């Protein structure tokens, strides 16, 4: 079959970070196929696609669309050449209707006036034509994430794209929505569209793609037909070594209750209720997983537990003592550790060096504090120790951390939080954006902490992660615990339904632990 897209010798060097994001990358996609582009974070997938879409200017290399060389310097050029992109973070205006969003900038008009009826009709027709039903009059803010994504896809189709680039499209979806997206992608391919599907989840590659290209360290590590490869082989190509995809852990040895939430309610930044009357507890030696689609109150719940946000109601107990109104410092002194979801803005301070980052929660201890002055030697020793124990590549004591990879940054956060053997660990999205090798490391660290006797609250939108690590699983939906499931027996579908707001079957319904 003819090539729809051919990129040859693409090179891009970022001087500001001293990274060769793309190094003579060749990338070819056949017309009408679904082509998965996989790779660790920082492997150069996003840079390659940003170059294709005109967001980043390459140092060298050329792009051919349908066999003809094209010059793409801005997104307009890409769109004119039939390339459309659906970004990971949707670029939609919440107060717009579906029709307004899709036709943005190309609205039909009558003597300069908008014609809403015509807009709605045109969008309904478009949706019909592609078998992607949407309500043209619905407001974006009222739509579930899967629907918003559909709007983005229609927006690209309306602009006559023949090649669709989907950047990590499943990251924000429930399993049901993922299945629906897979169906849509297959149909688009059947209708003659070419789809580039960027992902780091290898199981999705097998489910949806015809061919796959693996990026590693700025180079194309190989392209293969999906039928001729396996998940372990792809993982090895991505990381460059054998990877343990399964987490090995011993049966749970649950002990005392280390944390209890009792009837907890929290409001979000805008003052709306985010968590409503949630109760559960975490025991020593177990991992309690909280599953749920992102934005269902997990962030606020974690902030309330860790002391970064005040409660609206209810009680918190850490190690048998009431912690409802304690400060972050007091909670940490009682054995709390916190691995935050945003490691760059919350878990670390990129403006200062490694040593000062590592002492943020313990700079008052005698080890680092000599009569009000920082003990810089012991800070340095501590940094060297964390680097060694957690093998943080490329970090040096006293050095900056802003240029470390996401995986190494997370190792610093985990190294700091697990030092001092905390009894209760809150880990929120601990592997977000990390590559396979780093994920393996984070999972192992958490399981080790559990086996040592710590109680762990694991909050993640990655269902596989929750199922692989947790001893018990709660599903959160719209600020409430929708149900509890046993990860050993639960199916993805069962959890997916709870994540989407369905009520648990009476048989498996377990009341929130008191």
């Amino acid at each position, binding site marked *: 079959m003819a090539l729809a897209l051919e990129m040859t010798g693409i090179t891009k060097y970022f*001087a500001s970070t*001293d990274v060769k994001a793309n190094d003579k990358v060749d990338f070819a996609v056949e017309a009408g196929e679904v082509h998965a582009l996989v790779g660790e974070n920082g492997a150069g997938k996003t840079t390659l696609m940003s170059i294709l879409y005109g967001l980043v200017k390459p140092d060298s290399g050329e792009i051919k669309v349908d066999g003809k060389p094209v010059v793409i310097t801005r997104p307009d050029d890409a769109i004119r050449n039939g390339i459309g992109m659906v970004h990971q973070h949707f670029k939609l205006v919440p107060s717009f209707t579906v029709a307004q969003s899709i036709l943005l900038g190309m609205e039909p008009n009558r003597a300069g006036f908008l014609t809403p009826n015509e807009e709605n009709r045109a969008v309904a027709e478009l949706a019909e034509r592609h078998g992607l039903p949407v309500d043209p009059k619905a407001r974006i803010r009222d739509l579930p994430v899967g629907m918003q994504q559909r709007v983005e896809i229609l927006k690209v189709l309306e602009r006559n794209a023949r090649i669709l680039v989907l950047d990590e499209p499943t990251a924000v979806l429930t399993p049901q929505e993922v299945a629906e997206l897979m169906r849509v992608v297959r149909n688009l391919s059947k209708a003659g569209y070419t789809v580039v599907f960027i992902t780091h989840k290898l199981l999705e590659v097998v489910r949806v793609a015809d061919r796959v290209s693996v990026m590693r360290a700025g180079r194309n590590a190989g392209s293969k037909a999906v039928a001729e490869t396996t998940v372990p082989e792809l993982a090895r190509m991505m990381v460059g070594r054998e990877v343990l995809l399964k987490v090995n852990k011993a049966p749970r040895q649950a002990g005392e209750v280390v944390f209890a939430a009792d009837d907890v309610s929290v409001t979000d930044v805008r003052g709306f209720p985010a968590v409503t009357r949630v109760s559960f507890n975490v025991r020593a030696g177990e991992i309690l997983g909280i599953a749920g689609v992102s934005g269902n109150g997990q962030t606020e719940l974690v902030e309330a537990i860790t002391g970064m946000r005040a409660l609206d109601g209810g009680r918190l107990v850490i190690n048998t003592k009431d912690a409802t109104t304690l400060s*972050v410092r007091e909670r940490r002194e009682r054995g709390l550790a916190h691995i935050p979801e945003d490691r760059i*803005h919350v878990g670390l301070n990129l403006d200062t060096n490694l040593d000062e980052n590592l002492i*943020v929660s313990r700079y*008052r201890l005698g080890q680092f504090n000599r009569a009000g002055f920082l003990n810089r030697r012991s800070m340095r020793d501590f940094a060297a120790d964390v680097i060694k124990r957690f093998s943080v590549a490329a970090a040096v004591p006293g050095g900056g951390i802003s240029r470390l990879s996401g995986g190494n940054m997370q190792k610093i956060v985990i190294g700091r939080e697990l030092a001092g053997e905390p009894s209760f660990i809150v880990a929120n999205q601990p592997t977000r954006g990390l590559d396979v090798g780093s994920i393996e490391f984070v999972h192992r660290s958490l399981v080790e902490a559990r086996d040592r006797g710590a109680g762990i609250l694991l909050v993640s939108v990655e269902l596989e992660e929750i199922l692989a690590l947790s001893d018990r699983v709660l599903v959160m939906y719209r600020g409430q615990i929708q149900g509890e499931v046993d990860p050993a027996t639960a199916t993805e579908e069962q959890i997916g339904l709870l994540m989407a707001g369905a009520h648990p079957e009476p048989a498996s319904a377990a009341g929130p632990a008191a």
Partner: protein
Amino acid sequence: MTHDRLKQFDAFLIPILAVISGLLVSVVLVLLTKTSPIEAYRILFVAGFGCNDLTHCALFTTLERATPLILTGLSAVVAFRSGMFSIGQEGQYLLGAVVAAWLGYAIQLPPVIHPIFIMTMSMLAGAAYGWVPGVLRVKLGVNELLVTIVLNAIAVLFAEYMVQFPLRSDPGATAHSPIIDLTAQLPTFLPGSKWGVGFILAVLAAYIVYVYLWRSTPGYEQRMAGQSKRFALFGGIPSDQAAIRAMLISGALAGLAGSIEILGVHRRIMQAFSVGLGFDGLSVAILGQTHPLGVVIVAILFAGVRLGAQLGLQLEAQIPRELGGTMIGLIILFVALRKFYEGNIERTRNWLGRFFNRGQSRPE
């Protein structure tokens, strides 16, 4: 060189490039007065930094005038580094000056004790005036920038009132307070300038501010809270206390500046005492990369350029002394364009790297 080293190097390079750019653009202005720029800059430099003999030394006058700039600059550094965008130095400086002018004649104390007591009281006054925006920020979330602007205006009028009425010594044409007692005056080093103990105190303050911010745990708290509020909250750093402490220290430093200006230079307060020395501290802090060492260097540079413009350009070359202020303005403008320099420094570095073909393999 490692990346961290390069960044430190740039911290020096950028202000130097800004100064050079400011001086180059000023050449155009000098040419408008039909004077040779080389001659103008020579006169400016000699009048600002030259030294004929120990009693006719422009440099000493420059150091005298740099003293309040160093202290108000440090005041801004402490606030900025702690995440408080306070521009209240002017008001705190004026309160410190009013307190010093009053206590200088109103109470009798033995020498040495007298100025120490006065400076302490001036620092307390400045600190109290800095505490107000700090508390409003922490307790009510009021923007400290707006509060300090308003408090500055109040302080200017308050100082003017104090000079015109309660502190006024005689009904002459220009209002001023009585000369302060000899016991209260800060000693100067040499005749011919008021360069004295105040300068030593300012440099000492710069050192103390450095040690406090970068070596002490309270300073660590302030810097972390200033660099990333969310990180500080996450780690359990009491940001609110840190912010208030920053405002107290910042106010005290500006108050000390006002005190030294009275005790060491003017010996009294007169009407129109406020000439914007507090605001100059902001420029000094920004051009000095909000670092105490940078503040000391830039304060001396500013004072010298001003003095050179006033005594050199105006008196010798008949160029209006406002040119000095314009130069300083241009330099600040170029500092504000630091992104421009960063981009170009990086580009030049890459170009040089390619030119010398030092394409050694770069570690990840």
